[in-house]
């Protein structure tokens, strides 16, 4: 099983634990947008949107680019696809979620096996 950082998973999960941020990701899945275009449908102030964008960017979901005075935001490209260089070490946020869930898979097997041994040795 791939190793992952719990801290970085925390960042991923808390980034998703907010309806506005999920809305932003949904919007960006259609097309890139400027910060003010993003702020409009959510009826929130620019500073608030900036705050959400920082959280999403830190979690690796989005990237931004400044063109003139306007900041454009889009979803991060899937990692590893375009880079020919050394394989990137950081798993994508989704990869981490997947790992997290597979950890449960593996853990339950392990725990239940231990339970079986424990009960059967207690007869």
């Amino acid at each position: 099983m791939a190793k992952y950082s719990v801290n970085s998973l925390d960042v991923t999960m808390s980034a998703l634990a907010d309806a506005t941020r999920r809305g932003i990701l949904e919007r960006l899945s259609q097309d890139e947008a400027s910060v003010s275009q993003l702020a409009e449908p959510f009826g929130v102030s620019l500073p608030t949107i900036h705050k959400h964008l920082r959280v999403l960017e830190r979690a690796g979901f989005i990237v931004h680019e400044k063109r003139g005075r306007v900041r454009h935001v889009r979803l991060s490209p899937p990692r590893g696809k375009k880079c020919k260089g050394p394989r990137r070490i950081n798993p994508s946020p989704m990869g981490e979620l997947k790992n997290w869930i597979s950890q449960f898979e593996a853990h339950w097997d392990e725990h239940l096996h231990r339970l079986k041994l424990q009960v059967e040795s207690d007869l």
Partner: protein
Amino acid sequence: MKIIKKEIVINAPPVKVWEHITDPKKIAGWLMPNDFEATVGKEFILDCEKQGKVLCTVKEVVPLQKLVYSFQSKVTKVETLVTITLTKEGKGTRLTLVHTGWDALPPGDQAVADIFGGGWGSGLEKLREQIPATKMN
């Protein structure tokens, strides 16, 4: 199905298995340190080192048959549901564990699944499909 399902046959009667899944000291032996109590509504903590402390709530108790508790990491805010059922099988017990509620990631919002479907080409839906229902025995 968005579930994790595990089955195991234990060569002991349900009453014995029940003891091991409801006595906190015995739970600690196979799962993790805890302050479990088989009372509906009771909150307890599972202390898993890697995921931090998991806050659980007992949802249903049918002695010798069924145990349901919610499972929520303080950090991740995801609440999932663990259902353990015991059925007599010959001289032994079939234990079925079903871990559901991954679609509560994020809570009650399917939008993210769509996002990942479009944005990364590997959505939560796909992720869930990758979780097969597996059997141990």
